[in-house]
């Protein structure tokens, strides 16, 4: 694909949950290597937006493209596309019946059909990178939240994704574990990974984001560089949101 093709493109995306209009005419492009942080009050639709990108949530209308390819509705094509999109969840969702190393190697083995030796070598390297290689033979429940989330990031990276989605990756963590996860994410951002991060961590947004997208009531209200957003927000809703957070 040429450099001008956005890694993620959403155009005119609408979604309802029953009566609730959770996504209103979303237009968003994430170019290769960009780190986009999505901010907004709870219920603003930012998690839903994140989940529509690999179709964990179907959309009512509009177009979503990954690296120039339209997201298929179902079946093998969709599975293939999802394999290229890494996802990290708020509640980690590590496979409870598999060890940490098995969690990381399972998808390369079963989806990519990588040879076992190669998958384990890559898996251990990834676990070393996120600092938990010594936990490789434990089960998820035996790890702390921060370690589990780092394992989940390694699991997603094992598929060598083109883009990584983070759906509130630190919201379920005890405060002292937030930074170990954010450090891994900052490292990824520096290495040029394309990332879309839904978070409440303003520090991460300032430090690592190329762009901040602010959502409210299912709409993208602002889309700007972090400095501009934090120092000179244009909309009243963004001012209100920042006021509530920064006066804390």
């Amino acid at each position, binding site marked *: 694909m040429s450099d001008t093709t956005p890694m993620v493109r959403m155009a005119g995306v609408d979604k309802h949950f029953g009566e609730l209009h959770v996504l209103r005419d979303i237009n968003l492009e994430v170019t290769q290597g960009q780190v986009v942080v999505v901010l907004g009050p709870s219920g603003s639709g930012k998690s839903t937006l994140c989940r529509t990108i*690999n179709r*964990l949530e179907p959309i009512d209308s509009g177009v979503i493209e990954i690296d120039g390819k339209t997201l298929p509705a*179902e*079946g*093998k094509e969709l*599975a*293939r596309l*999802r*394999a*290229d*999109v*890494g*996802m990290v*969840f708020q*509640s980690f*969702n*590590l*496979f*409870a*019946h598999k060890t940490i190393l098995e969690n990381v190697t*399972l*998808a390369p083995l*079963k*989806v990519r059909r990588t040879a076992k030796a190669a998958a384990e070598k890559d898996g251990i390297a990834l676990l070393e990178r996120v600092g938990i290689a010594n936990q490789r033979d434990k*089960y998820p*429940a035996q790890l702390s939240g921060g370690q589990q989330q780092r394992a*989940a990031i390694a*699991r*997603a990276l094992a*598929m060598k994704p083109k883009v990584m989605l983070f759906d509130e990756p630190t919201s379920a963590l005890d405060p002292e574990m937030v930074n170990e996860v954010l450090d891994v994410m900052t490292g990824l951002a520096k290495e040029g990974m394309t990332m879309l991060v839904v978070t409440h961590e303003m520090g991460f947004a300032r430090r690592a984001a190329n762009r901040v997208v602010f959502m409210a009531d299912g709409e993208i209200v602002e889309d700007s560089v972090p400095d501009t957003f934090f120092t000179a927000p244009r909309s009243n809703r963004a001012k209100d949101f920042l006021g509530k957070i920064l006066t804390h």
Partner: protein
Amino acid sequence: MNVLLDNLGLYGRAFLGTIELFLIAGVGSLILGAIVAGMRVSPVPILRAFGTIYVNLIRNTPLTLILFFFAFAYPRLEIVDLSFFTRASIGLIIYTAAFVCEVLRSGINTVPVGQAEASRALGFGFGQTLTVIVMPQAIRAVVPPLTNVQIALLKNTTIASGFSVFQAGGIYQELSENGYNVLVGLLWIALGFLILVVPLTLLQRNLDRRWSVAK
């Protein structure tokens, strides 16, 4: 005591028949039950409907009726000529699978939805998500009720004596023909079933213990 000792061969052959029928029907019902459970949670409406109809039809039909069907009605259909033993196995498999399906489905409901979401997000299809991620965890959650279903199956094999499959349920007939005390004979049969259930119970405890550590 001599009811047992005089007829040791009879008891032996009969319980071997029971074990054989149980093992075949047990494995068969676990496989078929898992397939039907997969249908009941699949995204395809036709498969879901089939699974629902299957379970509700079979679960509510008396086992005797199902076995009678295979004993007497099936041969009239003149499809494939099957032995009594095979037909008894099929009847037991079809019946027990409906219960296995429902136990597995309740197990599937205990697996957090995030497990399947993570699996799908990694590129697993529905079949892989079910077999590699969801089902193994579902089975761990339902070892005790699944054992119950299998114990019930073990005892249900006695109904197969209704159509000439030689197993433990048929011992008393031969005993009474030969003039032995049937009451004592039946007590020995009951003891035999108790002994057969022991390994199942041990297996359940073993699996429960092993998997509770893993969680």
